[in-house]
């Protein structure tokens, strides 16, 4: 391949994430990556979305995997299809894969991806944009031994409904209906479905970051887990000597509050993220030390979406320095699944 030719990107899925996040991001780096094909089971949707960027469209996974103009595959389908599609793209000889979070829904699926990546040498990254946020990356480089000192970590995701931000990013077509009815009577199966959806759909954004502060993350204990109406969770617990508080909910007014905080005896890290979907620069990270005062990182002019695509491009060309090791992705997923399973068990334990 010529070093000067941008890599072609094929999308599996054409929903709001592709329309609002990935296509606007790629539009800012046409020298590196260009959309060349869009696949969706909804033919009208794939045609409409592909037409915006001059890409081809299809309803067939096989077609997009066989397309030689597709160098990189972005898996943006419903999460239950992620693992199989990632493995298929690797086996098809693509140069790199971006998979939306979560990249699998079980440890077994994660192992299949790891094996396929090892067999084929194809790099994969997960679209956890906060892992790639420039403010997070900058503060990580500067924080020294801070993670080892953390006593508690808190994630608070309090956001308006997605459509508000999607509409500020692009003109969305084919938006799926949102329905957040709380069921009248909770059953163990309903609780499991709710926490799977909440943890794998919302908390998943920050759990890889939280794991950074938890050397004993495998010893996670969830001591409280409750649903918030109409859509949300409150989870409390501990892992070793570190306490954890996770809150996520969506509301009907306009102000977003997305914060991550880690507390040590003499130092506090606080990160304020922008909402999902918007393209308004990076988060702002502030680390305050009792002796040396406050240091602020960001806001930078680009966000984690752009960083993740740049990292993927570099990895596709053979330099993997900017992407997480597959073992870290698997550990992240294991942690996410563990949180979901233990939150479910805790909530079921509270049933009368």
């Amino acid at each position, binding site marked *: 391949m010529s070093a000067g030719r941008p890599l072609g990107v094929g999308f599996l899925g054409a929903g709001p994430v592709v329309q609002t996040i990935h296509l606007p991001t790629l539009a800012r780096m046409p020298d590196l990556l260009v959309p060349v094909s869009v696949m969706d089971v909804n033919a009208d949707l794939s045609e409409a979305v592909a037409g915006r960027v001059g890409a081809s469209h299809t309803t067939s996974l096989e077609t997009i995997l066989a397309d030689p103009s597709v160098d990189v595959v972005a898996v943006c389908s419903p999460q239950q299809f992620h693992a199989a599609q990632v493995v298929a793209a690797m086996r098809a000889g693509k140069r790199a894969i971006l998979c939306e979070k979560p990249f699998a829904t079980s440890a077994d699926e994660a192992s299949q991806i790891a094996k396929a990546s090892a067999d084929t040498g194809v790099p994969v990254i997960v679209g956890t944009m906060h892992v790639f946020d420039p403010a997070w990356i900058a503060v990580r480089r500067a924080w020294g031994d801070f993670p080892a000192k953390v006593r508690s970590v*808190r994630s608070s995701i309090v956001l308006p409904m997605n459509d508000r931000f999607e509409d500020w990013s692009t003109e969305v077509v084919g938006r799926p209906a949102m329905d957040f009815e709380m069921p009248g009577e909770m059953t163990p199966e309903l609780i499991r479905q709710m926490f799977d959806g909440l943890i794998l759909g919302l908390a998943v954004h920050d759990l890889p970051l939280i794991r950074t502060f938890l050397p004993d993350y495998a010893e996670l204990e969830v001591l*409280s887990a409750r649903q*918030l109406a109409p859509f949300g969770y409150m989870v*409390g617990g501990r892992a070793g000597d570190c*306490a954890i508080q996770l809150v996520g909910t969506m*509301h009907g007014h306009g102000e977003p509050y997305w914060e991550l905080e880690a507390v*040590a005896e003499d130092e506090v890290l606080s990160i304020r993220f922008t909402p999902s979907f918007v393209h308004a620069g990076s988060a702002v990270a502030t680390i*305050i030390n009792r002796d040396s005062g406050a240091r602020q990182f960001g806001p930078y002019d680009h966000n984690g979406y752009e960083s993740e695509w740049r990292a993927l491009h570099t990895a596709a060309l053979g330099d993997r320095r900017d992407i997480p090791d597959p073992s870290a992705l698997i550990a992240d997923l294991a942690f996410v699944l563990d949180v979901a399973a233990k939150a479910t068990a805790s909530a079921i334990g509270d049933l009368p």
Partner: protein
Amino acid sequence: MNTALTIGSQEPGLLTRFGRTLASLPVSYTAAAPDSVPQVMLISGEGEWARRGADAIERGCAAVIIVDPGMTSAEQIVELADLAERNGSIVECVERYAGDSTLLQHRRDLTQHLVAVSAIILTQIGDFQNPASAALDMVRTLRALGQTVAIDKLWTTAHSVGIRGTSGTTLIEGLATAGTVAVGQRIQALGFGRTLSMTLHGDGSARPSDIRIANMKGERKWPGVYQSADRAAWRRIVASMAVSTSPDVSGLRLFADDVTKIGRL
């Protein structure tokens, strides 16, 4: 004519706070002579503060101010309330978070808004005597916000304490961590149509806390009150002593209830 109340402090450790607040209320208070029984006595909230408060009343003090009251015997608090009621004595608590001047200024409005939220989340950073006292700090703030909290779980790590409970149908979650940076208490109350955010400094200063509400009209900051919790408590004593009605010890009895709740866990 000098009508100032005489005030004294039981513990030398309170003298810095004492001096700072006395300087801000020079008309209402004057320091008691060393060998006299002051009309108002400051008492540290550590250990058996309720018993020491009762001792002060029995020695003739007309009022006592309990500074940063922590966990103690609920029975002793009730005995203090009974004694104050019998003697017509006043007992005021200076609580660094629950007694925050900005919070108290807006308490009525906040309480009304909190009717429409489904969850209240507290996080606290600071020193604490023990996990139970940190939990008590959080419960007391909720009490100040008009919440009658039932706590059903309390858990700890080496440096943190978590609580979980309800107030009516509102879910309550709290996490306090021992630390020396970004000290204070943050409260976030979540409703579909509004989010309330409060940052209480709890540092004994007159720096106003930050209280905001976000709704469809946007985010609005409420006016701050530039008065320490100490000064506000001293002023309440002046106001109470200016009227001849029986002292209201219901707040003290509620404090005993909160201590009992935490003690059970």
